[in-house]
């Protein structure tokens, strides 16, 4: 992302934060974040990240807000409409972490993955398009795709441009296969058609045959994908 885009996204995030939180909640989050930015205290970061649900609701941000649509224009494929305010606040917090010291930055976020609660994991994976050192998170993304926790898979797959942009072909193919296997809504996967490749097509064709031979139904999205 170029500097201008980064600034615009930051502005939209600030707007959403101000309008979705009550004043006391907003004060708590911004104060704590400022402290973390200056102290770099990882325990504090972990505690604040964990406690966001006490200050942010599970209401959805909503598709209709112009800010949501603007973010999607700036970062194609990144649709925040189905995020909860809670998730949004966590992603906002991650976005505020100072990234100059690469090792420190990576450690901070890695630390949050360890022992992460279900909803914390969702926020972490949804934040990927905004994290610094994007290539570094590929391994974690691949690990997330191995999860069987439905919410985690959806956080990686749905309306999230990170996988399409950064995953290697084999890793991307694994994600698509997993999506079909776990009966995820593949139409929400950004650039599903565009990243189709011969290896994936072949595997999907085998998968269709496997389903048919087993007398099981075949997801119409599979046929549609292979029509290309």
């Amino acid at each position: 992302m170029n500097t201008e885009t980064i600034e615009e996204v930051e502005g939209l995030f600030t707007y959403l934060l101000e309008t979705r939180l009550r004043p006391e909640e907003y004060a708590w989050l911004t104060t704590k974040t400022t402290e973390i930015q200056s102290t770099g205290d990882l325990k504090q970061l972990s505690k604040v990240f964990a406690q966001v649900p006490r200050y942010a609701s599970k209401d959805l941000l909503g598709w209709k807000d112009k800010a949501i649509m603007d973010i999607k224009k700036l970062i194609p494929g990144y649709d925040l409409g189905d995020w909860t305010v809670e998730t949004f606040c966590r992603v906002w917090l991650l976005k505020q972490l100072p990234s100059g010291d690469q090792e420190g930055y990576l450690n901070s976020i890695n630390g949050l993955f360890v022992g992460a609660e279900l909803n914390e994991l969702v926020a972490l994976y949804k934040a990927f398009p905004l994290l610094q050192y994007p290539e570094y998170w590929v391994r974690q993304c691949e690990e997330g795709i191995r999860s069987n926790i439905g919410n985690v898979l959806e956080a990686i797959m749905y309306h999230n441009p990170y996988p399409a942009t950064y995953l290697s072909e084999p890793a991307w193919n694994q994600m698509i296969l997993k999506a079909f296997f776990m009966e995820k809504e593949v139409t929400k996967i950004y650039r599903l058609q565009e990243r189709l490749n011969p290896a994936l097509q072949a595997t999907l064709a085998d998968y269709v045959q496997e389903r048919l031979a087993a007398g099981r139904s075949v997801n119409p999205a599979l046929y549609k994908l292979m029509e290309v």
Partner: protein
Amino acid sequence: MQTQLDLSDISGMRFFDPHVHMTSRTTDDYQAMADAGIVALIEPAFWLGQPRTGLDSFRDYYSSLIGWERFRSSQFGIKHYCTIGLNSREANNEALAEQVMELLPSFVYKAGVVGIGEIGFDDQTAAEEKYYRLQLELAKEAGLPVQVHTPHRDKKKGTSRSMDIALEHGLSPASIIIDHNNEETVKEVLDRGFWAAFTIYPFTKMGNERMVEIMKQYGAERIMINSAADWGISDPLAVPKSAALMKQRGISLQDIELVTYRNAITAFGQSGQINEKDFEQTQEVDQAQKFESNSILRGGQQPRIDKNNIIIA
């Protein structure tokens, strides 16, 4: 009087099981619990059946209580909460216990952690006492209720001591749930202002006919029941089954609701982590709805298998 479980006896009733070890139970149990009306549960942190040998094992277990197990439960429409703590058995490995105490603060503030538990005495050793006390302090600091496991051997003395120590540390009895009570412990627990939880568990713990007698004597105030179902021969339907029995034996619906639902919510709700709206709606089954030719399963609805059929498809 017929004692075969008939779900229609308890249809429309909702249950909350505040002590059940779901990591040791199968999805069959989850399905049966959902069918019987259990809408939420609390899984206390416990041992794994044999002692852990390293800190990572504790970390991964705590992590699973707030991650995978929480998700697994949601698949059946049951809201999963947990308590986190160093259990009494493993407090005896002091070198490891010290490390676990360092680890606990990174888990006790997570969403859905409704207390420090299950802690207390097992053999009533000095080490067990040391870590019980430290965790009482942690509970005070974190503002969380405490779920106290009372020993199965030398229970009466162990329960008294557990309460004495909690009061010594300045905790309010109203924030403490004393678990695994029986006829010998109940009076003192209630008289001293604590919550009294009873584990309905075959052979080794409380039976539910005895439970009915206890309720007739003491009422329902500050009393709750649980299944504590684990790897042993135990019944994850202990709470709904006991509700059915209580109904048969003339306990009022109001009292039944208190001991099988409301009191647990009040006690552990002091953590600020329980929102009844999260499990108030009953899941609607709509088999006719389809999405792209796959039947749509709403949250909490799993495809059903017929356990009596030799065919698996």
